[in-house]
């Protein structure tokens, strides 16, 4: 029985009994004690490991809303606007002009076998043309990369793709193509833009390959490697429709239970709607699936989606809706059926997380939970409103009163804050979005998330966004909703662990909990809050074993 003492430059435990310490003692993959080195040396047989001496240790970060597919896009070439670090640690500088996109694709093309195989398209992702002044990426640009290899560039919005002439020739997209969302030039020829899923599906093989590659084991490993690189030790796969299938369980066990996989993953089941009978069967299957859980892999919770997204104008908003006059958004579940859909899961004692971007969707979810608690009272259920982007103070008071939690999408302020102010909800409501300050002040258990792959995985960026509320053009959006570094870091550790019902095991540096750490090269409490997202991450400790960032 070995006990290892890790002294560190500073340690923030987020455990109220002992908020700071000089060292942690680890035994059997768990924290045995924290304290001064002298105190810890009194433990029988304890030895010192000085390898973390120069680092700041905080609890391993907990991401309570991301998706296992987040690792899947890295099979393909990144050409987004922002700098982004790949799972292997490579830093991909942002492509801020069309010329840079072309250069990036040329480099990728040079790595592919020649002659070009029409069945092996060059796929790229993340293109974010909103900051390309006036220019639009079209086939002509991509033809400068290759005239023989099909090229498919998936835009960050997920609603658009640009393809080259070789792809259009292979897939038969031409002047005769009579499909909405295939814009044409003055001669009637398609320009290479494919708008919305129907048009994108015309890209056939390339379109299918993007999604097929998401389902590979390599994509799951990438997911873990990005966790390691960002100091994250607990991940979620928030919504997997197949998670109760034997084959899917086996696939996840093979990767996530592997000793070298550097994170824990809580997999939420996303049920298909059905009759009360089939929903009850699903609830039973989710409950039974808990038996397949391990220290690293958890099954047994449920995720549902109630509305769409604000930037896609598909979230359901209370009056006054979208400021640009767009019609109100879409229901993914019929509002009147939400209570019936949730009932079997609530009755089975399961934890329910529901995606509600708009405030009207929140109303529907809260009404359903209130109704269910009237029928079947439960304590400490921790049903959680996910995204919570436009949630108002009256709703936060209800969330608290109903014993629910909120997980807010803080990264939105940085990635879409300017667009929200300009066109979705206007400057006033944009400044109220993801109102972490209000949630905390009204006593709501809070977490914050990246929703990777929607925004990049990384708790420090999420915390930075909530602390500073800066937009990409440098405006502070809603300064009254800013929270402190301490509050933000608690939300992405113990706050997130609480919503996953894992706060007895992870989320703080406390005796008994798993020895999961984010190992940082600077103290996040010592840096300028504006630099919180730049604190370098050395890596993580998971269950006592260190994993160095790529």
């Amino acid at each position, binding site marked *: 029985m070995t006990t290892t003492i890790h002294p560190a430059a500073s340690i923030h435990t987020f455990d109220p009994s002992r908020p700071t310490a000089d060292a942690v003692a680890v035994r059997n993959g768990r924290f045995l004690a924290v304290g001064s080195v002298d105190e810890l040396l009194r433990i029988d047989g304890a030895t010192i490991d000085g390898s973390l001496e120069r680092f700041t240790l905080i609890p391993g970060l907990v991401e309570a809303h991301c998706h296992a597919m987040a690792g899947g896009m890295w099979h393909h070439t990144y050409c987004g606007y922002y700098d982004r670090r790949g799972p292997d640690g490579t830093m991909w500088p942002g492509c801020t002009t069309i010329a840079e996109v072309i250069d990036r694709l040329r480099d990728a093309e040079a790595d592919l076998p020649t002659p070009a195989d029409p069945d092996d398209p060059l796929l790229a992702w993340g293109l974010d043309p909103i900051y390309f002044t006036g220019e639009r990426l079209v086939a002509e640009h991509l033809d400068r990369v290759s005239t023989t290899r099909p090229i498919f560039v998936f835009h960050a919005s997920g609603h658009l793709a640009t393809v080259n002439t070789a792809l259009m020739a292979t897939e038969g997209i031409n002047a005769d193509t*009579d*499909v909405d969302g295939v814009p044409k030039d003055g001669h009637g020829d398609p320009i290479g833009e494919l708008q919305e899923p*129907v048009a994108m599906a015309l890209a056939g093989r390339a379109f*299918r390959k993007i999604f097929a590659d998401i389902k590979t084991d390599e994509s799951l490993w990438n997911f873990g490697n990005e966790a390691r690189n960002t100091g994250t030790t607990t991940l979620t796969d928030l919504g997997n429709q197949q998670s109760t299938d034997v084959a899917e369980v086996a696939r996840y066990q093979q990767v996530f239970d592997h000793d070298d996989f550097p994170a824990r993953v809580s997999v939420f089941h996303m049920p298909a709607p059905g*009759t009360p009978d*089939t929903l009850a069967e699903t609830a039973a299957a989710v409950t039974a699936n808990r038996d397949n859980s391990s220290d690293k892999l958890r099954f047994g919770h449920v995720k549902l989606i109630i509305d769409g997204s604000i930037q896609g104008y598909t979230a359901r908003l209370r009056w006054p809706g979208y400021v640009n006059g767009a019609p109100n958004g879409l229901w993914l*579940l019929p509002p009147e059926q939400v209570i019936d859909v949730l009932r079997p899961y609530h009755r089975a004692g399961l934890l329910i997380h529901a995606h509600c971007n708009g405030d009207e969707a929140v109303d529907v979810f809260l009404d359903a939970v209130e109704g269910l608690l009237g029928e079947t009272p439960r304590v400490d259920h921790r049903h959680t409103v996910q995204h919570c982007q436009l949630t108002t103070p009256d709703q936060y008071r209800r969330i608290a009163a109903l014993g629910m939690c909120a997980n807010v999408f803080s990264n939105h302020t940085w990635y879409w804050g300017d667009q929200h102010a300009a066109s979705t909800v206007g400057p006033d409501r944009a400044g109220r979005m993801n109102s972490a300050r209000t949630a905390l002040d009204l006593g709501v258990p809070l977490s914050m998330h990246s929703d990777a792959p929607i925004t990049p995985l990384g708790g420090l960026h999420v915390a930075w966004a909530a602390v500073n509320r800066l937009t990409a053009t440098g405006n502070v959006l809603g300064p009254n909703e800013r929270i402190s570094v301490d509050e933000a870091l608690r939300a992405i550790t113990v706050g997130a662990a609480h919503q996953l019902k894992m706060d007895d095991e992870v989320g703080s540096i406390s005796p008994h909990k798993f020895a999961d750490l984010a190992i940082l090269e600077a103290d996040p409490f010592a840096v300028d809050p504006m630099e919180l997202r730049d604190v370098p991450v050395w890596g993580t400790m998971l269950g006592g074993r260190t994993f160095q960032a790529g």
Partner: protein
Amino acid sequence: MQAHGSANSPSPRLPLTVVGGYLGAGKTTLLNALLSDPQGQRIAILVNDFGEVDIDGRLLEASSEDPHSGKPLAGDILTLANGCICCSMVDGFAETLETVRGFADRIDRVVVEVSGVGDPRQVARWGQLPGFTPDGVIVLVDPLSIRARASDRYVGETVVRQVAGADLVVISRTDLADEDLLVETETWLATTTGAMVVRSPVPAAVLLGPPLRIDHVATDNDDARSTPPDHVSIVRHLDAPVSRASVEAWMATRPLGVARAKGLVRIDDRPDDRSVLQVCGSSATVTVDGPWDGGDAVVVAIALPGTPRAGLVKWLGLLR
């Protein structure tokens, strides 16, 4: 029996009809009615709510290796007793349509049931993919609840959007609604949608129109064989290409009462191609579905009971 000289090679494009309407409006009931009287057409039913396929158990093929006993799980493809197939889509529309395209030699058309909060007009866009052709958006309206739904705080816009996007609105539960309510519903619909409005029960030939494979329909210049009683139907054979202008005039001047029309014709500016004319309720489209392969061109129309035949004859006569 095959029509002499008609363009009778199988269409390379499967017509895709979308059936929408709010929760409980009667979508599945209508599909079941279609499946029990499929007009000689082999129909693939797709259910687009990621949910249970609620097809009448009697229509399911009794098969020992089918463990589902009428309660299939999402993602399954089932064979129905009349040779149709049924499939609920879990992997997304693109993949499901890819699968269905693989059955193209075994089916004549695709009918999609959209979820109660889905937008059937949006779903219909999938019919533009290669291998398919959009063939109508039919929206069910329950007269007992539609007005309350349309002003509901949460689903009002959703319901109005469904109705507004329809080509053909079918009022269900006509057995439970009195005449006043039906008229009131029709009046409201007239201000809400440009779609043609009909009361259930609606014959399958009106819902689906005449089959694209012209060998299934009439061989003479008179009534189509599958015309439901009371409805008026008319067929016209054309031996020469028609002008683009006449097609446009034909589409723009439909007589009241025309619920469905379909034609396989040659148009003068694309004489080597087979152009498909389609009318479903308020919408009329012309698409090209492949090279012309000889034979007569033909147009078939079905109109509601009481529609004057002379007007229809004159209308088809516009094509020249």
